[in-house]
């Protein structure tokens, strides 16, 4: 048995009215990769914030024993001094500054009033090589992709002489290729003796990389699963711990599938990049959806899926459109206007619910009605009571967990926010719903509920297009699957016939230009 590097003993953390952590015990061995899994709001992030000193000593009960000593961290600096470095889920880099400046932000080389830029860049370059980046540290962060930015974050942590590295959802914004590279880098660091804690929703990654998996549920550690063996622990096994029961079927059954006529058809659709008009982001795409059908669009990040959906939705993305759009078999000339798209009964549910979807400073009620105010108002005067009734109806229908629809959307969990976003677009009464990553960043239970909603929509005769980066989800839900790569449609398969392997094979083949 290796030495215990970190032990958190009987940690209890209460927020006014809520016990976020309840007597949590958590041990990490030196030199292992320890995964922390659990649904959203289970307490993973709170636990890590206690560890890193974001919630200072005294605001929680219990002990942190690190490297054999009881520690009292009053702020992040205290924990970083001992080599505990946390990399947060949202990238914390300043896009306009160079990689080097970012890496040593708050940790400047030389003197406070006379920064030694030569040392800064030399050291930064050294750490960049360690994480496998060949970029110069004098390059602006905004010029490199998200995958590389995540690596810069890790290099930044290394520059702080990390001994215990905490990664909070490090792959949530990465595509599969970059994710795999990052996980392999973690394994490489492990060989060199680094200890790591990873928080992730992606259970296949957890199973791949972690030595030990601790499951957190409702503010308590439920169990610790050993994953040292050669046989990887199964995802079902982890999920069982997370939700407290066995999910026999992660995807709800669809009964009463009645697929009707073609509702939306896109013919030779080409869209150019808004800033670099010579670049095609959607290249000669043709596709269709039938009434009552769930059609998946799978592709790696940057394949042009979001751009395709947004360009269909009132040309809200891109320039120089060409091709034809048909609704119910008739060609439609749509103006460059989202309002026009809504009038044609199209809805686009964005992948970025906080950035492009919801007004976080407003209530559930206000958000629900925003895209379809006409329905609850006459002569632009809003009928507040009708609006309330509508919001209540959707809260009930979609099981949005909140005491009241007057609740601010910013205070809801990710899953509930996603439901509000769906409610908003369902209330707009569309026939065609373009769902862009409808389950991104939400927990297993909420995902299941979203799947049920999608099935209900299809059963009600809507045409559903689901864009997703999660293969199991696409396979489990869709009647038909389109595969996109680099702006082009490279394949189409029946949902019942497709497999993970066959879809990946299509993408690989197209990538080689065959």
């Amino acid at each position, binding site marked *: 048995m290796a030495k215990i590097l970190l032990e958190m003993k009987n940690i209890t953390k209460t927020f006014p009215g809520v016990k976020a952590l309840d007597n949590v015990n958590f041990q990490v061995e030196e030199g292992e990769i320890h995964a922390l899994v659990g649904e959203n709001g289970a307490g993973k992030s709170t636990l890590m914030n206690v560890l890193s000193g974001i919630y200072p000593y005294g605001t929680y009960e219990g002990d942190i024993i690190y490297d054999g000593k009881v520690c009292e961290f009053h702020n992040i600096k205290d924990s970083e001094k001992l080599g505990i470095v946390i990399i947060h889920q949202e990238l914390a880099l300043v896009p306009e500054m160079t990689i080097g400046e970012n890496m040593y932000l708050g940790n400047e080389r030389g003197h406070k009033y006379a920064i030694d830029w030569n040392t800064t860049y030399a050291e930064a370059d050294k750490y960049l090589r360690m994480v496998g980046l060949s970029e110069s540290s004098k390059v602006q962060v905004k010029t490199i992709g998200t995958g590389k930015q995540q690596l810069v974050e890790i290099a930044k942590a290394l520059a702080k002489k990390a001994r215990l590295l905490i990664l909070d959802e490090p792959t949530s914004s990465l595509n599969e290729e970059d994710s795999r590279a990052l996980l392999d880098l973690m394994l490489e660091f492990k060989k060199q003796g680094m200890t790591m804690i990873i928080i992730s929703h992606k259970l296949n990654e957890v199973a791949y990389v972690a030595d030990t998996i601790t499951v957190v549920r409702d503010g308590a550690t439920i169990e610790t699963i050993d994953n040292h063996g050669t046989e990887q622990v199964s995802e079902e096994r982890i999920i069982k711990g997370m939700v407290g029961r066995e999910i026999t079927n992660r995807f709800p059954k669809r009964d009463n599938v009645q697929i009707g006529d073609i509702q939306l058809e896109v013919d030779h659709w080409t869209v150019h990049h808004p800033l670099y008009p010579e670049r095609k982001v959607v290249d000669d795409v043709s596709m269709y959806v039938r009434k009552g059908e769930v059609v998946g669009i799978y592709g790696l990040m940057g394949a042009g899926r979001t751009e395709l959906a947004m360009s269909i939705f009132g040309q809200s993305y891109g320039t120089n459109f060409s091709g034809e759009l048909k609704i119910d078999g008739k060609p439609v000339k749509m103006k460059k206007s*989202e309002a026009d798209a809504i009038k044609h009964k199209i809805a686009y549910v964005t992948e970025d619910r906080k*950035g492009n979807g919801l007004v976080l400073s407003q209530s559930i009620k206000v958000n629900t009605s*925003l*895209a379809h105010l006409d329905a609850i108002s006459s002569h632009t005067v809003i009928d507040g009571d009708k609006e309330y009734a509508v919001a209540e109806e959707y809260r009930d229908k979609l099981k949005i967990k909140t005491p009241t629809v007057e609740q601010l959307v910013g205070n809801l969990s990710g899953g509930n926010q996603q439901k509000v976003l769906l409610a908003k677009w369902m209330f707009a009464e569309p026939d065609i719903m373009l769902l862009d990553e409808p389950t991104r960043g939400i927990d297993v*239970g909420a995902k299941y509920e979203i799947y049920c909603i999608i099935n209900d929509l299809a059963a009600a005769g809507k045409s559903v297009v689901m864009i997703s980066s999660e293969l199991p989800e696409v396979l489990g839900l869709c009647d038909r699957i389109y595969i996109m790569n680099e702006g082009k449609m490279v394949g189409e398969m029946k949902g019942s016939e497709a497999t993970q392997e066959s879809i990946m094979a299509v993408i690989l083949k197209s990538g080689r230009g065959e």
Partner: protein
Amino acid sequence: MSENVKKAPNFRKNATAFMQKYKAGEFFQKYTMVLALVVVIAFFALRTGGKTLLPANINNLIAQNAYVFVLAAGMLLCILTGGNIDLSVGSVVCFAAAVGTVLMQAGVNMWIAVLAMLAIGLAVGTFQGFWIAKVHVPAFIATLSGMYAFRGFSNVVLGGYQVSITNQSFLDLFGGGAGCYVPDYLRQLFGLANGKPNITCLAVGGLAVVIYILMTIRKVHIQKKLQIHQSIIGTAITTVLISAVIIWLTLKLASHRGIPTVMIWICMVLGIYQYITTRTAIGRHLYAVGGNEKATALSGVKTRNVFWFAYASIGLMAGLAGILTAARARGIDPTYGEGYEMDAIASCFIGGASAYGGIGKVSGMIIGAVLMGVINQGMGILGVDSNYQKVVKGIVLLIAVMFDVLSKRQKR
């Protein structure tokens, strides 16, 4: 689903705990400025031996700050769109008033002059709104140039001199001079001699309270029918308090000279803006754009038109404020209106509007404007040096916004 059933009790427990916490925080956040206002009023009443509460002074408070209410209403819409402000209003007030005054002195019909002033305000607002909404010139800069330009135009129109207004019906209607009170029609109707108290004022005040209470009862009734949870006691307390304030104000004004005509314009503007912000689609769009512009655009709202609307509206208000300013001063001088924009902006922020947009209410703005007015007047009566008055105003603004920021942070 078994999962939901299992989670339910825990969730409900959390929800009630959350609600309790939320309510306490919300109460503090919502009523900080009301409490502050009460404290400030009490302070000045004590220090001046009750002078600030004399009917004449209450009357003056309203007349002096008429332009603040009008401009702050317009400013609130701009701030809602994302913390944008309009720096040009002070100059536009002066410009519109200058044109109107010159017209009237040239013998033009008073109503044509009034319409001209409103039209100028609206036109300037629309013009500036065009640059902001369609060309994406930052609002700060577009209105800063307006601030310079229209100050210059005012000077040109007035030839650098002060011009007086002699049109008595204009002065009476818009709050200048001795005749600017609503005549006591009821006393005349009953054949009583003119005197105190002003019966018309009492009747109007009484009617306002009755209408307010009836509307509240209707609202409660409808919400009950829709099974909207509400705190009856809370509603009752606010209704009683607001009615009390209206009655108190009515009694004060009635024992002076009745309703100042300028109050009609203030109430009209505040009523319309309250309605726009709470009950109309464009009002909803203002909040949504300030909260998340991208999401609003993707909801099919033409966001740029929302900006345009806000700036056109404040232009119109600047025109109205120009009318009120010219009437009160019985004329216009090229320096009038300087700093008005800052009074309007301060009122909104003291009233809880967010500097990032998307949050703010007309009711809050009214509290903010009254608070500033009370402090101004109180210090004036106490004879505080005018330079120090500015210092105090600055400090009040800083403290008010600090409270706002802190109370929001506590909620996290």
